[in-house]
């Protein structure tokens, strides 16, 4: 499962990435969680508000800082 966090400009985005890494670890995902900071690339995902979360190329959250539990739930939803 490929998990990407978008945005690295503010505290919220950084925290969102940390939470995603933790959630991926909790769910036993070995692929490293990637972070995209480049604005142009973020926009090409269709996202205009960060932090955002992408799982398997699908944008699952935009403009919100998610908690570890919330990200775990999103991952589990996709795993099934």
């Amino acid at each position, binding site marked *: 499962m490929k998990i990407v966090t978008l945005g690295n400009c*503010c505290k919220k985005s950084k925290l969102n990435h940390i939470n995603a890494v933790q959630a991926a670890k909790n769910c036993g995902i070995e692929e490293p969680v990637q972070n995209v900071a480049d604005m142009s690339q973020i926009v090409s995902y269709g996202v205009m508000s960060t932090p955002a979360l992408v799982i398997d190329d699908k944008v699952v959250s*935009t403009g919100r800082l998610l908690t570890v539990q919330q990200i775990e739930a999103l991952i589990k939803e996709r795993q099934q």
Partner: protein
Amino acid sequence: MQNDNNTTNNEPQQLQTQHSNDGTQTAPKWSTKRKVLLGVAIFVGVIAVAIGIAAIVDGTNGIVALGDFVTKQILGMQWLDTLLGMAMTALFGQQFASSTWGKAIQFFVYDTIKIIVLLCVLIFAVSYIQSYFPPERTKKILSRFHGIGANMMGALLGTVTPFCSCSSIPLFMGFTRAGLSSGVTFSFLISSPLVDLGAFLLLVSVFGIPVAISYVVVGLLLAVIGGTIIEKTGVGNNVREFITQGTINDIDQPDMTRRDRAVYAKDQMLSTLRKVWIYILVGVAIGASIHNFVPQQWIEAVLGEDKWYSVLIASVVGVPMYADIFGTIPVAEALFAKGVGLGTILSFMMSVTALSLPSMIMLSKAIKPKLLIWFVVIVTAGIIAIGYIFNAIYFLFI
């Protein structure tokens, strides 16, 4: 339609089976839409009943008195001012409470509490509404409109789309790549910091409903006209190359439950509070000192209604300043009490919130200097024009 009918027909049956199966009463499952409708109906009903009672008791005067009560006591929290005055008198004696310092302290405490309480309630409510209009969705809505209608929608959505100066670049890229015209993007960018729901309610509490509505209307007009000028003159094409190069996908907006929205609204409220409390304190402190220490003559000499240059000074001083609208209002409130013209005050508030050095620096990364200069010139000119117009027709509102 058919589906709707089916559900309504099925509901009683389901209820009955549940009832007979386990013997417990379960609440009927209402669709979210109906719940929202019911909520709105109750809300409107309560307001209608209140207005009705007021009208029966005292005719038109009753309705005016009710409006006054809502403005002054609920939104304006004047009861708090009265209570604070009583507390000051009880604690420090009549003499101190009615001295300049006593009044300044009372104004400071009252205004700080009032603005912070209103800010929390308003930001929470507004963020909840905003969670329905993320920029990604706004972009999609806007691409359906053309011409001046698109500018109006841009200005309107600017008031409800959550947006801060640090997201102006991705927003710019997103809008441009999605094929939205520069005019629409700028209508959005002008109205976004200028007019928002929270500021509107705060204005109601300080200046009353007519002034608040006129602020919103002229703010939106400025956004529509400014955006149109930027597009029609062609200066709007002066954006940096990387903005237009590349693509953008439409995404399905991720689902949010009502709980998610409430959490989002709470986070938004806390982070806004953390960000703006210092502006509020500074704003209220300036307001309190204008209120009580700065002699009336000084203010009248510089910003007095009869001085033709008052609007110019207010606008030019306000442009490079950066403050949240919530920090600007106490200053405006104090100036207003000192007899400064309404137009001058509107110009000051608008120039402080719409244009600021940090937002210009951010924008300069996305647009070329020529467009940036035009943007600043058009918005400043518009704000000055609004000031003069309001000073001229001032008597209609007060």
